């Protein structure tokens, strides 16, 4: 044995304490980060609990929120719900706590947090969990099955990768098949029957419509854009996009663009001035109408969009499904023209809105295809409306005058209140009311002179 000085020395007894702090929970890497197949926060939390062989509830209660009783009581099984990966305050709290416990970076990218301050919460997240069985099956073949953030968007109803509709319920749902034991809490395990949701043997793959597919692709593109990945240049946003569009497409008339996008003027002004945000379905409509991506809209990139002609919202089917799209119907414009002509010659004129409701065709479509007839219908209705209003005003004046002079003759001061007591109906119109005050005053003066 040959000895040298390096063989002798002291061992640091406190070496263990000098280690950099280790993460309390395993540093589980989120799946699909940076791609359109990015994992959702709910799926991540379920996998994290599984990595520790714990029920998510136990992990949440004892480790994530160990001393926060009100939060613990309100948790339920929230990680199973799509809103868990949404843009709410609670989601942000979860992200913060989980990042602290796992020391994982950027768990925010597993949520819709990037839409905070860009879209309203309404209609953003779907209510029920949805999944693509083929994605689960493929995941299991190559690695770990996981739930996608893409599936939690209400606007996404199909898988853009496999071009099949997302599934909302397992086959067992119809039979209410329950098995003994508790289903393992994982994104690809049915909570009711514990079977693998990637088992696609008995499933009929329903094909999505072209619009469903387009919407899913738009959202998938958004998830790999700088908006979601955090490389957006500051400065421009949705308001700039809409401003540019108003200038380019509707010659500075915001109301006209609002009409083309199928929203009210005040709503549109709210967007332009940043008073409130459009909901996600409306953002998709803006992108579709302008023929650009959602990220172009949100980043205010209007160069491409303003080069394309705008497609009115009525050419699309609204994602909420409350207006039936007409783009897929074949319209008989000769018959429509005859109908419009009849409406124009009708004894009582109708407004263009009433005409469009009676025909079941959006007024923008009518305006685009038969502009002269629409202008004539609108003009006739406006003229008739104005004449009717004038005639009605004169009738009211006569009635008030009769009552006021009657009161004066009886020695009663003719005031507006007394006119109302005599049975005259209250007139909501400010202009009419003012005229009626003037008649009362006139009657008072006349009676005092006599």
């Amino acid at each position, binding site marked *: 044995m040959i000895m040298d000085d390096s063989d*002798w020395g*002291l061992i640091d007894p406190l070496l263990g304490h000098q280690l950099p702090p280790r993460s309390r929970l395993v540093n589980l890497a989120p799946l699909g980060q940076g791609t359109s197949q990015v994992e959702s926060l709910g799926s991540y939390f379920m996998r994290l609990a599984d990595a520790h*062989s*714990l029920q998510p509830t*136990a992990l949440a209660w004892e480790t994530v929120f160990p001393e926060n009783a009100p939060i613990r009581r309100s948790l339920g099984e929230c990680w199973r719900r799509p809103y868990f990966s949404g843009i709410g305050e609670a989601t942000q709290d979860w992200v913060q706590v989980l990042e602290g416990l796992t*020391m994982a970076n950027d768990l925010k990218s597993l949520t819709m947090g990037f839409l905070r301050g860009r879209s309203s919460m309404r209609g953003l997240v779907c209510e029920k969990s949805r999944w693509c069985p083929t994605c689960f099956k493929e995941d299991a073949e190559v690695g770990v099955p996981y739930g996608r953030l893409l599936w939690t968007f209400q606007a996404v109803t199909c898988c853009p990768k496999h071009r099949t509709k997302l599934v909302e319920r397992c086959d067992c749902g119809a039979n209410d098949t329950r098995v003994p034991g508790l289903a393992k809490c994982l994104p690809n395990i049915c909570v009711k*029957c514990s079977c693998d949701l990637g088992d696609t043997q008995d499933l009929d793959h329903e094909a999505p419509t072209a619009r469903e597919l387009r919407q899913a692709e738009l959202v998938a593109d958004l998830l790999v854009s700088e908006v979601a990945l955090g490389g957006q240049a500051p400065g421009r946003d949705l308001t700039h996009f809409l401003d540019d569009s108003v200038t380019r497409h509707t010659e500075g008339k915001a109301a006209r663009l609002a009409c083309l996008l199928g929203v009210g003027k005040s709503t549109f002004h709210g967007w332009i001035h940043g008073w409130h945000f459009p909901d996600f379905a409306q953002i998709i409509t803006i992108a579709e109408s302008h023929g650009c991506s959602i990220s172009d809209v949100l980043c205010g990139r209007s160069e491409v969009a303003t080069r394309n002609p705008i497609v009115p919202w009525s050419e699309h089917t609204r994602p909420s499904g409350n207006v039936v799209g007409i783009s897929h119907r074949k319209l008989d414009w000769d018959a429509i023209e005859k109908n419009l002509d009849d409406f124009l010659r009708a004894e009582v004129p109708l407004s263009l809105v009433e005409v469009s409701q009676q025909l079941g065709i959006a007024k923008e479509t009518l305006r685009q295809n038969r502009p002269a007839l629409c202008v004539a219908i609108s003009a006739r209705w406006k003229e008739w409306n104005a004449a009717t209003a004038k005639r009605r005003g004169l009738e009211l004046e006569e009635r008030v005058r009769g009552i006021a002079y009657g009161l004066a003759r009886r020695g009663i001061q003719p005031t507006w209140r007394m006119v109302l007591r005599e049975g005259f109906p209250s007139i909501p119109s400010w202009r009419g009311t003012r005229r009626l005050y003037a008649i009362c005053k006139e009657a008072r003066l006349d009676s005092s002179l006599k």
Partner: protein
Amino acid sequence: MTIMNSCEINPHSMTREQALLLPDEGKRLYFDRVWLKHPRVKQTLDELNIHTASNSGKSIILLIGPTGVGKSTLIRTLEERFIQSRQQEIERDPGFIPVAMMVAPASGERGFSWKMLYSRLGGALDEPLMDRKLETRLENGRTTVRLPGGTSSVAAMRTAVEKVMAQRHTQLIVIDEAVPILRQATGNSLDNHMDAIKTLADMGTTLVLVGSYDLQKLASLNDQVARRTGLVHFTRYLTGVPQDEEAFHIAVRMLKDRLPIKHMPDLTEYAQDLHVACLGCVGILKGTLSTALGYALNNGGKWSDKFLEQSLLSDELYATILKETIEGEARIKDACVGSSSFKSLRKKSEATLAAVTAATRNCA
């Protein structure tokens, strides 16, 4: 003198003069934390490093040595080296726990408690809620879990530990005082023990079991385990071997220099006697000096040579340890890695063949 935090009492960074200013309890703690690195540690560590290398094919290492030789100190050094060699990975991955160390539980029950072992292992890996682990079942394509009643089942804890080892990328697990794992197992339970140990070692982790000579039996119980097992002998400094004697004398001097006693005399004259009395084991030497320090502190911090004699092992204990050590050394001589040769293996082959043939004839 300022009252120091116990974490600040560290012989690695504190001189003996500074230690002299500590209160008695601090002085005891100071000497307790003097962990001496000596040539035998380095030599054994080098051997361990060869076996713990990922391509060695040995996933279970038995680190065997006599009582008090300094096995615990050695595994601390192993941990230190292991951590230092993986510093970059540690900084890059905050979930990475390269090495986990624990002491095997002596449950006091009839059988060895694997539950306690997994629980401790979970603790060493910072695993939360070891008593709430789920047992997963996969039947007919359905994945269910069994919720723990009062506490987790052994199977659930075992799966949890295996999972967390994989997630934490743990490369080395050191179980000190591992002999109870064998002592309390017989028959079928021993097979189960072997399976459990094999599974832990199959996770891509090197399992180092540390203990006295009884641990050697593990290598000969099961061929599956034997194939994966490497045996490293941590030897003591032998009397009669000049280099060993010299090294032990240096160890005496170094430990003496760290004793927080004023006017501490030179112990050179006792070095030879201490070598014999401590069986050449540095751990026993440190224990002896530690006890002597206690006597000295009770004496107002004044040293007397009689304290050294009062602190020696009793005759009976000495005889027991010596007997076990000598017998163990004799048993292990042929079992260690590197102890064989082409010639010895050829002899062994012929002898085994002859024995098996004779046995077959007798049966016929």
